[in-house]
């Protein structure tokens, strides 16, 4: 088993109190699995991806454990995490467009990066060249500055750099949202290719675009207001979701082929709760059409079918 996260809680410290952005998240990720994490803004998906590799200054680890390939990942200790970052856990950040050093040629930047981790650039260079070719970048890209590349090329270059040491886990945070549709497809397919060639063992793809993860992911985890709502295989989430939030979210997406004149889609009324002082019980309660008395208690996230977990009283 590759990744096991138990009851992870990460809050943001603010002057007015703790924002409970990630509130008790438990899941598993198998070897070779691409898991899509989907949700609206503020649901905690970026907090989840960040807390698996590096907590920033405002983020506070509360409790929970993370295990990668049997070894405990010290997510709460910044110094100890250095032994895992880049070699075991790697990330393609949300703003990969600006992730590369602007005043270094890309090749030199990579050599400095490898040196800092104790690897020799020259021995890795042939493999680097092979991967650059694999993602369809020109050979001379190493002699260029980042500014000379287009958005999609930068994104693929960062993908190659992030996975150069064959990490066990790759976190891809909104990697395609700033790209045009045709480059988006190329980058998404490169992610799958890297998994198929076992450059990375498993992958967490964080996105707000469910139709994109439907194309590439094996499983999808839907988050709402800092908690998990539903996790199942891609087909199940898209074709027969059980959680009311997932159902409403999927039915509110306009698709190619669906026209207003033929079929009017509806949104979800209301807005997500404030996480500074979240309501007790099910956090989707106020917007949920199925809500009943029991929803004031918090629903457990339980497995209802093999590989299909839901947090909803109506389903349990």
């Amino acid at each position, binding site marked *: 088993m590759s990744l096991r996260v138990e009851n992870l809680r990460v809050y943001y410290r603010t002057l007015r109190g703790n924002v409970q952005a990630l509130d008790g998240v438990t899941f598993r990720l198998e070897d070779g699995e691409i898991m899509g994490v989907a949700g*609206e*803004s503020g649901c905690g998906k970026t907090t989840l991806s960040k807390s698996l590799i590096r907590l920033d200054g405002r983020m506070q680890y509360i409790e929970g454990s993370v295990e990668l390939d049997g070894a405990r990942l010290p997510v709460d200790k910044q110094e100890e995490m250095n032994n895992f970052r880049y070699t075991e856990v790697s990330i393609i950040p949300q703003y990969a467009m600006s992730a590369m050093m602007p005043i270094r040629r890309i090749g030199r930047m990579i050599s400095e990066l490898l040196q800092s981790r104790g690897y020799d650039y020259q021995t890795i260079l042939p493999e680097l060249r092979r991967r650059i070719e694999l993602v369809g970048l020109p050979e001379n890209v190493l002699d260029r500055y980042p500014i000379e590349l287009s958005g999609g090329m930068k994104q693929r270059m960062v993908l190659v750099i992030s996975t150069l040491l064959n990490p066990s886990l790759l976190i891809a945070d909104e990697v395609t949202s700033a790209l*045009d*549709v*045709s480059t*988006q*497809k190329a980058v*998404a*397919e490169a992610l799958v290719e890297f998994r198929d060639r076992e450059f990375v063992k498993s992958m967490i793809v964080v996105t*707000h*675009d*469910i*139709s*994109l993860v*439907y*194309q590439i992911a094996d499983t999808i985890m839907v988050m709402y207001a800092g908690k998990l709502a539903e996790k199942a295989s891609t087909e199940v989430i*898209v*074709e027969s979701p059980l959680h009311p939030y997932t159902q*409403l*979210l*999927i039915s*509110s*997406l*306009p*698709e*190619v*082929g*669906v*026209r*207003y004149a033929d079929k*009017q*889609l*509806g*949104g*979800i009324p209301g*807005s997500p709760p404030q996480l500074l002082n979240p309501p007790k019980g099910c956090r989707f309660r106020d917007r949920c059409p199925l809500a009943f008395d029991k929803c004031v208690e918090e629903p457990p996230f339980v497995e209802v079918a093999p590989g299909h977990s839901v947090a909803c009283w109506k389903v349990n």
Partner: protein
Amino acid sequence: MLKLDRIWKTYKVGAFGNKELTAVRDVSFDVGPGEVVSLIGESGSGKTTIGRMVLRLNSVSRGKILFDGTDISTIGRGQLKEYYRKVQGVFQDPFSSYNPIFKADRVFYMIKDQYFPRVKGSEWAERIDGALRDVRLDPAQVLNKFPHQLSGGQLQRMLIARALLLDIKILVADEIISMLDASTRIDVLNLLADLKARGLGILFVTHDLALGNYISTRTVILRKGVAVEMGETAKVFADPQHPYSKVLLGSVPQLHKKWSQVAAELKLDDTAAVEHCVYHDKFPGECGQPPTDPEQPPVVEYQPGHFVACAKEGREHLEDLLAAA
């Protein structure tokens, strides 16, 4: 009502403005009452430039933009104010459309000061309430608040309400829902469809084919400033002819349909069909560029109401036209 007649836009770029960049080349279409025309394209396709030219935020380099018969690209200040009574725009980022240090409802009072100075305060407040209800907002929830206290969807709807206070005929909606969350964006989209049913003409600028397809009556697909394909939305999406339209449609991630399946349906594997372009033969250069002869029609009518800049199937038709010219 609004008619764009072979418009071009050239920007001066470079340190001394000594280079030229053509953002829009020879684009013509019109928007009638009760019609939604979506401009679909990737970044750099000129879709926003067209919207800005309609709003007179950019000048037109060549060609005419006619509104009810008057060329608006040359009108003076007094007439421009009257034009803005009828044509308004809403843009992508709701948070930067408002001044953060003033309350959000200030936009309504600015309209009053500029266009309706003689309307009484109490009557104006009633009109604001009416406009807010038209965009399905509860006045008590949104009035007297600062922009940061409201959600993106609420702010975007308030901007539409602001436009409705003027007696507008055309609304330019430039990516107005791309920054909204999935669960709220469909409501704003349905709102636009309601306004369309009431006779408003909407120019819907988007990069998202699914949104354009959902709401629009007609579609214009742009590439590098050229309209490569346009026509009734149902026809363009059901039967795309231009190779670029096919590639674009094949790249959109869809729910319920994998990329490989879409590619098979569009026959994207047939590279000869995808890459073949009649203009390549007749006018060497980049695919989708209009012919150099200004009298030549830039697009051919492939079927009634369905225009294509270049396509294998439209080839005979195009050759007839070329022979006639």
